[in-house]
């Protein structure tokens, strides 16, 4: 294997990883604030891909142009899911309810998609689809590059929001101490609805980007849902920055892995590494607790 192929693989990995990073970030945002693991994050991505697809097929809208629209719609969907269902399922008697709820919601969403769109693969043509920029001997797919740019912009915007806006500060405060938030008059219900909405909106941005070079089908959320858990395990549950690097790490692992072991085994490789990380992390934790 020569270095050129390796570098190309790494570049591709970073681009692919952008989507993983976004979906991991959205998962971590929700976990960080609400302490719930959202099992339907992949399905939210699927829904936003279909929304992007509909904008394209009905209105001829370019997927990248649809990003802000999809993000806003998904924010609304997320806020609605949180304030009508999830908030009711969180009771003092444990978290299993939320777990079941988000799981079932995922199944419900993918089956609704199956009912509405059948199991066909659908694509949305972007003006950038199949375009490539060349850097010396390296080729970068333009839609993937734009997706990566969208990830960077999203990440920066999230940070600006969290540190400089009122609702952002309230979200941080609530994630750090929910009782402290209540006694300082923060409407935690609003904060939770916004947080879940933001998580869904980030998934929406990822979905719109993904739609420009990938296809949507009702079970597409599975792939990304599973990946998002790998991302947050690598980057740390609850850490937005961790998810950024975890996502890109996973992307590189996949593309470099498929160069080394072949595309057919790349998933196997990813999961082996995932299990290794879990085992090693756990061992480190045990050692730290002892030491």
């Amino acid at each position: 294997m020569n270095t050129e192929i390796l570098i190309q693989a790494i570049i591709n990995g970073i681009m692919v990883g952008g989507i993983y990073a976004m979906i991991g970030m959205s998962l971590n945002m929700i976990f960080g604030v609400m302490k719930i693991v959202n099992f339907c994050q992949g399905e939210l991505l699927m829904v936003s891909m279909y929304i992007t697809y509909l904008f394209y097929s009905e209105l001829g809208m370019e997927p990248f142009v649809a990003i802000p629209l999809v993000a806003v719609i998904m924010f609304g969907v997320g806020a609605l899911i949180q304030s009508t269902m999830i908030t009711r399922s969180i009771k003092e008697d444990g978290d299993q309810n939320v777990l079941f709820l988000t799981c079932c919601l995922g199944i419900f969403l993918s089956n609704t998609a199956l009912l509405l769109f059948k199991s066909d693969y659908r694509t949305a043509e972007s003006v950038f689809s199949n375009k490539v920029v060349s850097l010396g001997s390296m080729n970068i797919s333009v839609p993937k590059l734009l997706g990566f740019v969208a990830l960077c912009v999203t990440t920066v915007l999230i940070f600006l929001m969290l540190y400089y806006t009122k609702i952002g500060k309230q979200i941080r405060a609530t994630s750090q101490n929910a009782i402290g938030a209540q006694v300082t008059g923060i409407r935690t219900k609003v904060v939770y609805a916004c947080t879940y909405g933001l998580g869904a909106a980030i998934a929406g941005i990822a979905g719109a980007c993904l739609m420009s070079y990938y296809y949507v089908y009702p079970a597409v959320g599975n792939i990304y849902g599973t990946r998002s858990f790998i991302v947050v395990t690598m980057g740390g549950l609850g850490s937005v920055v961790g998810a950024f690097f975890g996502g890109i790490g996973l992307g590189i692992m996949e593309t470099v892995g498929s160069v080394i072991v072949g595309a057919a085994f790349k998933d196997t490789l990813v999961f082996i590494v995932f299990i290794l990380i879990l085992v090693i992390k756990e061992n480190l934790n045990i050692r730290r607790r002892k030491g």
Partner: protein
Amino acid sequence: MADNYFQVDKINVKYGDIQVLWDVSFEAAKGEIIALVGSNGAGKSTSVKAASGLVKTCGGRIVFDGQEITGGNCRSFIDHGIILCPEGRQLFPQMTVLENLEMGACSKEAEAKKKDTIEKIYTWFPKLKERAKQMAGTLSGGEQQMVAFSRGMMGLPKLLLMDEPSLGLAPTIVDDIFRIAKRVSQESGLTIVLVEQDVRKALKLANRGYVLENGVINIQGTAQELLNNEEVKKAYLGI
């Protein structure tokens, strides 16, 4: 005696099926400082949580400044001017001292007067000015308690409920905070409900006190009456 400025009237509180408060009543006049004392698990925290809207009551009334406010949530109590400094301080550890203070300015009025209030707080606790840019989680326990008290004051409360501010702190720091609380109360008519396990400590600050035992108030009276009460002496003062 109290003129019913703040009146908690026969409230009951349950956590799930387990009832922890039975017909608990206490009241405070404007500018008065009262103490709720009792041993661990007696229901002191639950009482002030109920009195600040953090937990729901079942039965009973809470009246403040002539208005019945029973059944509201924490935010609506804050809008009436009732603020809780909760047990264990509950600061935002990854925010700076200044940010923690700013988070306390909840109402429009408090927001508008934020700068002045912070200046005033810095004169009470010069230490906090030095530490303004430091993360609250890295402060000592005493400094954290100063932040907790100050964060509460940032909301411009008319009634401040303080849940065990002395927990785990050196007596001199507790004296500092109590002294400032007393001064604010005298100067601006702030009403204070203080929760303490230590009866003697509590009655240094409070004019009157209520003794909670197993979710029921059995003994109440002025500081002097409580200090002379045989039962209190035996159970809480170790005499």
